[in-house]
């Protein structure tokens, strides 16, 4: 069997993240399961939540058996990770069953939750069968008063603290994710410090800056509430640059790699390539945000993930934008890499895939101005000599960063 004298390595131990299995050519690597749109909170800025007790919505949701079928199918395609999200995924009474089933199929499980429905029993299950990924808890305040102004549910702070206590008691690794919302912005440094301490994280919590409008385009009133909470472009830029050294270093690397006009192709991302999201009712989406009727696959009735991944989703990536405003602006804008504009967000804001989103355009231009990429009143699509400008900017930025001792 072996011929050399050195003892062979029969069994190789690898950490998941560093494992060679991610290099394998499989049709699907990561699946997201949006188990429900219902949530026990009513967060002011939420893009998807529906009332927790809405029986009509609950009855429309995929059954346990359907979710199990989906999980079996993703594993057959080589999938390695499933992420459960919502709404609040722990509202599903079958959550523990879906979780255990996923792990028994050999999937790594991610979970995004508000943490309020974590029970002692669930934490003990995670201690016994670890998810292999840190549980992500979204937290939108520093105390009951600030938190419940956002969640609009009395007692929600206490419930989340209890859930976190169960995680700590059982030594379940978790991270906290925040959002740039008024109660947090006022005490941002304190929030980051406390969140980092609470979850014993090596890094500050990730913060959501871009508040998306309602994903189902279901409520102009709720959209208005979200719009009211959005940061002004100036505030957005100021907060992004708050940790100055890290910001400029990141921006230097990012802009060098990703700036340039995206052209007429509608999708500049990898949506639907090796990753899919199944919504609560069985519609398969190329990404969690993209719910345009022409971009989804009716998995519940067709049950053929391979078909979506081989035919429908690749065909989307070939689509061209047709909206004249998009073609005149976004397609030619060298700042596109900095912008949150994408077909999913265009759908959320305007009901089409290629309409420029004014808010993100303003944010991007403000950011670019503050970085020195454009002059006052200049627009990204007007800059014809952008490669030369970017080169000069990179040189100036490198000098600045060297002077500050950030880079060598």
């Amino acid at each position, binding site marked *: 069997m072996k011929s050399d004298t050195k003892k062979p390595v029969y*069994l190789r*131990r690898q950490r998941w993240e560093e494992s060679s299995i991610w290099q*394998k050519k499989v049709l699907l690597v990561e699946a997201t399961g949006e188990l429900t749109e219902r949530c026990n909170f009513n967060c002011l800025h939420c893009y998807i939540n529906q009332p927790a007790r809405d029986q009509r919505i609950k009855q429309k949701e995929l059954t346990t058996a359907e979710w199990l079928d989906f999980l079996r199918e993703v594993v057959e395609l080589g999938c390695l990770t499933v992420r459960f999200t919502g709404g609040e995924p722990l509202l599903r009474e079958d959550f523990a069953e879906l979780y255990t089933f996923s792990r028994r199929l050999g999937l790594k499980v991610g979970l995004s939750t508000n943490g309020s429905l974590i029970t002692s029993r669930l934490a003990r299950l995670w201690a016994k069968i670890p998810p292999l990924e840190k549980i992500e808890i979204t937290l939108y305040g520093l105390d009951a008063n600030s938190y419940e102004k956002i969640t609009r549910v009395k007692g929600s702070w206490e419930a989340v603290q209890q859930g976190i206590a169960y995680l700590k008691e059982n030594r379940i690794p978790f991270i906290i994710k925040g959002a740039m919302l008024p109660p947090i912005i006022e005490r941002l440094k304190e929030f980051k410090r406390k969140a980092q301490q609470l979850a014993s994280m090596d890094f500050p919590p990730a913060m959501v800056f871009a508040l998306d409008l309602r994903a189902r385009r279901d409520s102009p009133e709720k959209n208005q509430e979200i719009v009211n909470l959005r940061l002004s472009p100036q505030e957005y830029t100021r907060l992004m640059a708050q940790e100055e050294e890290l910001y400029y270093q990141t921006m230097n690397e990012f802009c060098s790699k990703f700036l340039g006009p995206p052209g007429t192709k509608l999708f500049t991302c990898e949506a639907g390539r090796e990753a899919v999201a199944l919504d609560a009712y069985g519609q398969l989406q190329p990404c969690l945000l993209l719910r345009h009727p022409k971009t989804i696959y009716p998995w519940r009735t067709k049950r053929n993930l391979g078909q979506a991944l081989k035919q429908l989703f690749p065909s989307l990536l070939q689509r061209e934008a047709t909206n004249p405003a998009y073609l005149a602006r976004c397609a030619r804008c060298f700042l596109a890499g900095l912008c949150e504009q994408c077909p999913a967000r265009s759908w959320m804001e305007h009901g089409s895939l290629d309409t420029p989103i004014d808010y993100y355009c303003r944010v991007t231009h403000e950011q670019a101005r503050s970085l020195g990429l454009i002059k006052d009143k200049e627009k990204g699509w007007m800059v014809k000599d952008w490669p030369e400008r970017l080169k000069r900017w990179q040189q100036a930025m490198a000098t600045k960063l060297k002077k500050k001792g950030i880079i060598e």
Partner: protein
Amino acid sequence: MGSLINLGKKYSLSPNLVVREIEGEVIIIPLTSGVGDMEEALFTLNPTGLAIWQRLDGKKSVREIIQELVNEYDASREEIEEDVVGLLEELYQRKLIVEEEG
């Protein structure tokens, strides 16, 4: 120190792990805490390891597995025994296999 592995005993895969095959490669994924001695670890096998692993059905003794491999591969019994015992010791220590009763 003697080997942890008894040639007359039968071993089978632990029920606390999941075995997947992705693109022809066998991947061993610990299911419960304490298996594999590192929660976020997974394991892969080299071809020799795989040939042995596939025979761990809890029905054949280690000696029988060695004999099967001797019949199948062009290598000496000593070499094969060293391979089999070496891997089984590692799997046993990591709680990836269990000894069958009796």
